[in-house]
C-alpha cells in the first residue's frame, strides 16, 4: 500500500518538474532535487507560487498540484 502512494508521489513530482521546466525556465542539474531546501527546484517553485499568488514556501503543496493539472497557455510565465 505504501508503494502505491510512493508511485503517485513520484508521478506528481515529475509533473511539477516538467511544469517548472516548461513555464519557469527550470533546468535540471542532475542531482536529486526536491529536498535540497535552497536547490534550483525550490527556487523555481517559489517563483511559480509567487506568480500565481499562492503562499510562497518553495514546498510542493495541494495548491501547486492543483494548478499543474489545469489546462493553460503553452507560453512560459517567466520570460526565458
Amino acid at each position, binding site marked *: 500500500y505504501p508503494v502505491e502512494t510512493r508511485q503517485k508521489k513520484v508521478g506528481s513530482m515529475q509533473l511539477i518538474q516538467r511544469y517548472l521546466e516548461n513555464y519557469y525556465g527550470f533546468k535540471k542539474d542532475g542531482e536529486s532535487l526536491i529536498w535540497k531546501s535552497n536547490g534550483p527546484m525550490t527556487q523555481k517553485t517559489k517563483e511559480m507560487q509567487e506568480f500565481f499568488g499562492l503562499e510562497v514556501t518553495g514546498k510542493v503543496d495541494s495548491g501547486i498540484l492543483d494548478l499543474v493539472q489545469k489546462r493553460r497557455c503553452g*507560453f512560459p510565465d517567466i520570460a526565458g
Partner: protein
Amino acid sequence: FSTFAREPKWTKQVLTYRIVNYTPDLPPADVNAAIKKALTVWSSVTPLKFIKKDRGDADIMISFAAGGHNDFIPFDGPGGSVAHAYAPGKDFGGDAHFDEDEAWTKSTEGTNLFYVAAHEFGHSLGLFHSRNPNALMYPVYRKVDPSAFPLHQDDINGIQYLYGPSSNIHNDQRESTEIKDPTESKDPALPNTCGPNLTFDAVTTFRGEIMFFKDKHFWRKHPAVRNADFNLISSFWPRLPSGVDAAYEIPEKDETVIFKGNEFWVVRGDAVLPGYPQKLYTLGFSKDVTKIDAAFYNVNEGKTYYFIADKFWSYDKRSQTMDRKPMLIRDAFPGINGKIDAVFQHENFFYFFCGGKLFEFDSDKKRVTRLLKTNFWLPC
C-alpha cells in the same frame, strides 16, 4: 499586465491574418467566426484592424497541430498546454498555434476556441502573461461565458499601453457603454444602421466578408457572424475618397475595384495597388461615361457588370471584350427596374439595392425571389 522583453509590437494598424488549416472539431464557418470574434475583442479597444487572407503570408498565421509541429514548443496531448502564440515580429512572429489534441468547441464544454484564441492573440499583439486571475491574459484556462466580453481592465490597460485606445466609437465596446454628448461630436451624425431608409453608396464582397460603403464609413460583415464592424474608409485605405460610387471584387485575383466619379482604384488587402487611380475610359467605356452607379463581378461567368441609370455593360474576361452597346437592366434582370445604388453576389444570388429596397435575384431562375429591407445583412 506585462509585455515581452523590449516591448515588441506591430508598427502598423491594419494587420492580416490567415487560418492555415482547420480543426475537424468544428465546422470551418464556426472556426472563422471564433477567430474573427477573438480578434474583434482587441480591435474594439485599440486602433487595430484585422483583414482575413485566404492564401499566402499574413502577419498572424493560425494553425492547428498535435505534438511536435516545427517549433521549439511541442504540444503535450490532451490537457496541459492547449495553445501558444509568438510576440509581434517577422516570420513566425505573431503566429498562433492550437493543440489539435484538445476538444475545441464553441460552448463551455471542452476547450472554447474563441476564449483561448482571444488569449493567444493577446500574445500575438505583444502582451505577456498577467498575474491577475480575472484577466484574459492569465495563463490558466478557466471556464467562462463565451458570450461575455472577455477583456478585464488589466488587459485593456495592457493593450492600450502598447497601441493606444480605439479611435472608433462603434468599435470600442467598452466606450460604447459611455453616454456621449452628441453636441460634442464634430463629424456628421453616423448613419443609423437599422434605419428603414438606409441606402448604400456601394457593396462588395471582400475576402470572404461583405463590405457596405456609406459616406466616410463602411460596415464589414462575415456572412456567418452576426456582428458587423464599422470602420472609417480612411483607416483601411487613407488614399481613397469617401462617398464611393461602386465596388466589386475579383476573388481569384484578390483584387477589389472601387469607383468614384470617372476614376477607379484597385486594392489588395489594405494596399492600394500602384498606378491608381485610373480613368473610366481605360476600362473600355466611351469618354462621355463620367460615373457608374454600381458594379459586380459574376464569379460563375467570369463577367463584370457595370450599371448606369437603367442600362448596363458587361465585360467578359475570357474573350476580354466589353459590350459595344449597353443593354436594358430589366431585359437581363427581370424585376429589377431603374437606377441601382449597389449590387453584390452571394452564392447564386445577386442582391440589388434600389433606393429603400433590396431585391434578391436568383441567377439560375433569372427572377427576383425576395424583396428585402436594405439593412437585411446587418445585425438589426
